[in-house]
């Protein structure tokens, strides 16, 4: 990472000791009262924020404000007012925004868990490339209500910037593969630039991450966003192919590690989104609902569409039983109830109350059975 800021503020003298800041009157935080629950700041932090309040009071927007706000951000990256004032200053003095992005590269890695580092990037990118070049590059209009022919192509610069940004996010995700803000930012970036070349790499990216860790729920969510988030990208027939591809991929991942809630949630998600009945998955799911001993009696047919659980899989798999109960709920509710009872009393006792609720709800809708 390039270190634009040099040695960092630790080595710097206090603003109150610097001759170039003597014209600013520092404003102490509390004037005229004794606050409850105060924080014991370091002298350095108190100094910088006293000068920040001084600057805000006079509404100064200048080069040195960038230095001051950077110093505060490095000490407390959650100081949203320093970020906000910095943003307004950048625009007011027409500072080069590409340099700001470079500085953000180092700050994002250092402070990747704070909202503000990611939001600031979003503001800077939006300021550079606004208005957003949406619906512009060979993708069908997701709304299908307006003609895409009138839209202009994205500029080569914005395409390049988006690619650079995507590569940067990828590097950050290598450090923390479940960082909420990073993922959220990646999804925003894809939607904002909405460039077919950006979208088309995403499936491979997700698959690399899931190869690393098949239980990474953030990657599963991203897959759903990429496949379904934009709505209809292509014709109906292609959606059938997409569903087929997604089912096949998800089944393979479940076969690798059946007790993986992320993969089961994804499976449910794609079925619900496409209006596909759960019962279509019955022959895939059933082997996962049995113990290895019970499966010994089953005829072993190599079924490429329905991969079987591995020898090391811990069976029966609770998620598979839940799925099977959902299949039965429509026309064989007594079988569902049997499964839910087993989950409640034996296999998933932590959720006993939930399974009992499911039983109560399912039987409520059913006329008295003989």
């Amino acid at each position, binding site marked *: 990472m390039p270190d634009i800021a040099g040695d960092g503020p630790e080595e710097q003298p206090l603003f109150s000791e610097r001759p170039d800041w003597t014209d600013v009157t520092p404003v102490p935080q509390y004037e005229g*009262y004794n*606050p*409850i*629950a105060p*924080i*014991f*700041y370091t002298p350095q*932090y108190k100094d910088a924020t006293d000068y920040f*309040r001084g600057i805000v009071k006079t509404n100064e927007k200048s080069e040195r404000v960038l230095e001051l706000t950077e110093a505060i951000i490095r*000490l*407390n990256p*959650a*100081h*949203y*007012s320093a970020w906000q*004032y910095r943003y*307004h200053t950048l625009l007011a003095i027409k500072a080069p925004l590409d340099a700001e992005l470079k500085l953000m590269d180092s700050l994002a890695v250092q402070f990747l868990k704070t909202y503000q580092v990611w939001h600031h990037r979003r503001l800077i990118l939006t300021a550079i490339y606004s208005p*957003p070049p*949406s619906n512009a590059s060979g993708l069908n209009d*997701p*709304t299908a209500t307006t003609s895409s022919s009138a839209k202009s192509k994205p500029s080569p610069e914005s395409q390049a910037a988006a690619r650079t940004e995507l590569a940067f996010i990828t590097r950050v995700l290598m450090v923390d593969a*479940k960082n*909420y803000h990073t993922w*959220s930012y990646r*999804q*925003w970036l894809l*939607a*904002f630039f909405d460039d077919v070349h950006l979208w088309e790499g995403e499936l491979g990216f997700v698959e690399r991450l899931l190869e*690393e*860790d098949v*239980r*990474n*729920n*953030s990657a*599963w*969510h991203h897959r*759903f*966003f990429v496949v379904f*988030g*934009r*709505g209809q990208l292509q014709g109906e027939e292609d959606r059938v192919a997409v569903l087929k591809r997604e089912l096949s991929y998800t089944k393979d991942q479940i076969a690798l*590690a*059946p007790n*993986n809630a*992320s993969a089961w*949630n*994804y499976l449910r*998600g794609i079925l*619900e989104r496409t209006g596909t009945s759960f019962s279509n998955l019955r022959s895939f799911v059933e082997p996962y609902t049995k113990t290895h001993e019970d499966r010994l009696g089953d005829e072993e047919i190599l079924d490429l569409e329905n991969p079987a*659980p*591995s020898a*090391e*899989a811990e069976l029966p*798999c609770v998620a598979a039983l839940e799925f099977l109960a959902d299949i039965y709920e429509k026309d064989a509710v007594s079988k569902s109830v049997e499964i839910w009872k087993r989950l409640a009393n034996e296999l998933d*006792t*932590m*959720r*006993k109350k*939930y399974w009992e609720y499911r039983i109560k709800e399912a039987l*409520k809708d059913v006329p008295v059975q003989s």
Partner: protein
Amino acid sequence: MSDNPSPILRPTPTDGFPSLTSLQQIATENTLKNRHPSAALPTDTKPPEAVLQRNQHIQFLVRNLIQGFPARYTSQDASQPWLIFWTLQGFSVLGVGLDEKNKKRAVETLLGLQHPEGGFCGGPGQAPHLLPTYAATCALANAGQPGEGGGWDAIDREKMYDFFMSLKQPDGSFLVTYDGEVDVRGIYCLLAVATLLNLLTPELIAGTPEFLATCQTYEGGFGNASFPGWALRDDVAPGEPAIDPTSPRPPLGEAHGGYSFCALASWVLLLPYINSYPTHSPSLPKPSINIHSLLRWLAHLQGEAIELGGFKGRTNKLVDGCYSWWVGGCVGIIEGLLAGGGVGVADESPENEAAGEQHDDGWDDVDDSLYNRKALQEYILYAGQHPAGGLVDKPPKPADAYHTLYDLSGLSAAQHRVIPNSKREKELLACWTEDEVKDPVEGLRRDTFAYALSWLEEEGASKYVGGAQNRVNATHPLFNLTVTHAENMMAHFYKRDVPSRYRTKLSK
């Protein structure tokens, strides 16, 4: 503590296929299982008792409030009202009243955070922001009162409303601050404050239910925001919806316990508005969320016995004490919705079962809980408490102000059942005359007031792991204030004499 046999501490299955997630999960299980009362201990050691270390926690809170916070809390310098709220609400949950002198100091400190242009700031001289506005308002509900020096009448409600409106986006969402991000935390904070301070108007919340609905993900929980760009219409005439309802607005970010709490609590605060849809928005379909898939996802976030039944914040992440409130509390809201007849819930048939009279000491037949309340209490009592006072994410982490409140609030949610009481709602509706509600805005305010304050603790439904000495106060599921504080503040700002709720309960 319990006559039930100890559950078997089964590790989470990894199917012979380890990955970073499963390795971290196992490491956490290995730490937590030693806290379980059934953990193998030397024969001469007594198993740990489930005792709420009340005095240590009170001392922790007193230290923070009176002496202040060490330098590592500099990261919370833009969250100063939160530090005060977490501490004051912690006292309220623990049943500790603040003396007049410190109440005055708290009010003075909080008013020093009000921005001249409306709303509250993270610290003096900072910018106004929705999150500190919630924290400051709720801290004032704890420490303030009407009248001179009481703080409540010093809140500039008109400017606050203007501040809220200035943050509104065409898709029904709100920025958290000028040029800030959009997310459902900010929306929850805004709606909680607008409800408490009587600031709701149809203009303020138009489009907000639809926005919330777009944040629900395929898992059932809610992410932090959604992408508006594809649905924004160009050249919208004034008065026309800025959003094309047929365009995709995908959620940004995966289903998350904190955002799900904020989204559901927001939704429920908006229910009186949502229920009046044909009146105010005849052209728009009534928005809906999927409560069933939300409930399923929430139920699955409860950790196994080996994790002491704590809650995770996302699928395949680790348990953390703060989700006792965000996730446990969120299930509590759903319990209230279902018990109350499922207002605003799609395809939900009303079912108002008589509250069972439970005199049994067993846990299995207690009530209509939808999660394991007993296990959640055990997580907080066995794994959530720091021996030196304060509460934690999980051992061996240090205690902090945030986890102390949300662990305690989660304990409260797991002990009590706070649900809408229709008799109470009728009483509160009767605080308005027919003439007053001819104005539809006043009608909305009345309905919101009555519905929000109809959530009451159900008598006889409280259960305490470790016995009644571990009892903490009930909190209002939509505000995380005691019902008394919420009621007092709302009675003041809606200018109503609220009938005593104890009569309502007795005559139920």
